[in-house]
C-alpha cells in the first residue's frame, strides 16, 4: 500500500505566477470581502498518524522553509521537543504513551500538531485587526503580520490552541502554520509533506485526501483497528488539515486532540450578538438622551429658585 501517487511535484524553475491571492479571499478579519469570482478547489493536508515514525523531519522542514530557528532542546522526559508550539515552531510532534486497555499493548501515539485550517476559523472570528487573518477559497487560513497588532485575540478564538504570540521583536505578532501558502501558490505542497519519509503527511485536494484516507482506514480496520477513522471535525465545518487516527473514537488520546472542537460559545457571544448589542445599547442611550432633551427642553434653574436660595441664606443670618 505505498501511496506515492501523491508525490509532490519538483519545484518550478521558471518564473511562476502565484495561482491564488487577494482575489480569492472568502473571509478577512474585522472586515468584509467581495464574493470571489471563482472558487478554488479546496486543498488539504492529510496526516496519517498510523504511518508516522516520529522522525521530526516535518519539524525540521518547517523551520527550514519558514527560516526559523529554535534553541537546542532540553530533555523533559518526552520526545516532544520543544515542549509546546512556539512562535517559531509552527508544527510539533506530540508523543503519547498509552496502554490500550483491550490489548494491554503499549501504543506510542504520535500526532503532528499545528494549525488545522478550519473552514470556520475561530482565530479569524476573534481578530480585531482588519485583514490580519485571511481565509482563501482553497481553505488556507493565513496571518498577515503587517496587519497583526499582537493582541492575542486569535489565541482565545482558536479551538485547537495553536497561535503563539512572538515577543522576540519590538512588536508582538501572532504566528502559526501557513499550510505553506507560498509553496501551494506555486504548485508545491507544504514543506512538512515534502520531507515526510513515510508519506504519513500527504497533500492534495480535499476530495483526494478523503479518498486516500478511506483506503488507509480500510487497511487499518483490516488489521484490527476497528475504530480507525478520519478526523475532519464538523464542529468547525471541517478542517484543511485532517488526521487518520487508529482510535478515531477517542481523539483526545492523541495529546488532547479535541473530540468535538468548535469555537467557544464565549467567543461566539463576544464576537457575535454582543458586538451588535453593545453598539446598539450605547447608540440607543445617546439617542434617548437627545430625544429627551428635545422633548423636555433644558432643565434650567429659575429666578424663583435663586430667590428661594437667597431668602434661605438671609433668614439664617438673622
Amino acid at each position, binding site marked *: 500500500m505505498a501511496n506515492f501517487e501523491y508525490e509532490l511535484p519538483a519545484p518550478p524553475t521558471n518564473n511562476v505566477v502565484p495561482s491564488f491571492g487577494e482575489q480569492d479571499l472568502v473571509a478577512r478579519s474585522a472586515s468584509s470581502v467581495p464574493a470571489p469570482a471563482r472558487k478554488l478547489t479546496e486543498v488539504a493536508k492529510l496526516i496519517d498518524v498510523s504511518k508516522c515514525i516520529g522522525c521530526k523531519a516535518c519539524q525540521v522542514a518547517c523551520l527550514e522553509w519558514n527560516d526559523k530557528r529554535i534553541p537546542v532542546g532540553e530533555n523533559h522526559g518526552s520526545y516532544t521537543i520543544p515542549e509546546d508550539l512556539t512562535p517559531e515552531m509552527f508544527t510539533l510532534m506530540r508523543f503519547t504513551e498509552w496502554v490500550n486497555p483491550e490489548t494491554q499493548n503499549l501504543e506510542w501515539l504520535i500526532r503532528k500538531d499545528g494549525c488545522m485550517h478550519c473552514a470556520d476559523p475561530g482565530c479569524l472570528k476573534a481578530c480585531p485587526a482588519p485583514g490580519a487573518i485571511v481565509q482563501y477559497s482553497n481553505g488556507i487560513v493565513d496571518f498577515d503580520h503587517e496587519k497583526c497588532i499582537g493582541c492575542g485575540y486569535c489565541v*482565545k478564538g482558536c479551538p485547537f490552541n495553536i497561535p503563539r504570540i512572538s515577543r522576540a521583536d519590538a512588536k*508582538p505578532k501572532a504566528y502559526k502554520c501557513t499550510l505553506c501558502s507560498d509553496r501551494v501558490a506555486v504548485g508545491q505542497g507544504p514543506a512538512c509533506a515534502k520531507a515526510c519519509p513515510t508519506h504519513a503527511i500527504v497533500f492534495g485536494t480535499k476530495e483526494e485526501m478523503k479518498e486516500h484516507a478511506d483506503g488507509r482506514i480500510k487497511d487499518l480496520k483490516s488489521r484490527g483497528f476497528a475504530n480507525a477513522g478520519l478526523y475532519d471535525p464538523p464542529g468547525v465545518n471541517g478542517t484543511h488539515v485532517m488526521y487518520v487516527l487508529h482510535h478515531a473514537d477517542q481523539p483526545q488520546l492523541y495529546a488532547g486532540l479535541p473530540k468535538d472542537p468548535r469555537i467557544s460559545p464565549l467567543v461566539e457571544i463576544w464576537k457575535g450578538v454582543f458586538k451588535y448589542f453593545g*453598539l446598539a445599547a450605547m447608540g440607543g*442611550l445617546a439617542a434617548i438622551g437627545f430625544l429627551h432633551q428635545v422633548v423636555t427642553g433644558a432643565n434650567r*434653574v429659575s429666578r424663583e*429658585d435663586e430667590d428661594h*436660595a437667597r431668602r434661605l441664606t438671609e433668614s439664617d443670618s438673622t
Partner: protein
Amino acid sequence: MTAYDIQSGDKVHRGDPVVVDRYPPATRINHWINAVCLILLAVSGLALFHPSLFFLSALFGGGETTREIHPWLGVVVFFAYYGLFFRFWRSCLFVRDDLAWMLGIGSVMSGREDKVPEVGRYNPGQKMFFWAMSIIVVVLLFSGVIIWDQYFYGYTTIEQKRLAVLIHSMCAVLAICAVIVHVYMVIWERGTLRAMTRGWVTGGWAWKHHRKWLRELVRGGN
C-alpha cells in the same frame, strides 16, 4: 439631616445669586484626569471591540499602539476613580428617602423635582452611578489584567481568558452607557457642569436639585 452630606470645602457665599462652593480644585483635577483617561480608554477599547470602529485606533497611532496604551490607561483610570471614590463614598450612602425619589424618577426626568423628596449632596441616581462604577471599574481592572497578555499571559488558562474578555467587553459597555447617562444629565441640568469646571454652583441650582444639602450647609452656619 445628616452631616455626612457636607464635605470639606462646601461653603455658601451670600449674595445675588447665592454662590455655593461644591468641588475644591484637587477634586476637580482628579475628576478631569479620570474623565479624560476614561474617554481615551473607551475610544481605544471600542476600536478593538467592533470592526466598524477600528479606525479609531488611528487616534492612538495604529492598532499596535492602541493595544499597548489601552491597559495602561485602564490602570490610570482605576487609581483616578478610586481617588474620587474616597472623596465621595460617604455622601453616596443610600438613605430612606432615596426609595421614594427613585419611584418618582418620572417626575424627576420631566423636570418636576418638587414632587419627590428633597435630596442631599447626591441624588439616588448619582449614587447608583457612583456605586455601579465603583464595582465595574474593579471588574474591568481584574478582567483586563487577565487578558493583558504582555505581562500576565502565563497566569491563566485560555478558557479563563475567553471568559475574561467577554466580561471585560460587557462591563465596558455598561460603563460607557453609565457615562453617557452621567454626561447627559450634566448637559440637561444646566448649571451643573460649572461645579466641575469652576467649582461652584448657584444657590438656585442647589435649591432646585440638592435642597437638603443646601439647607444643611446654611444651618451649619457657613
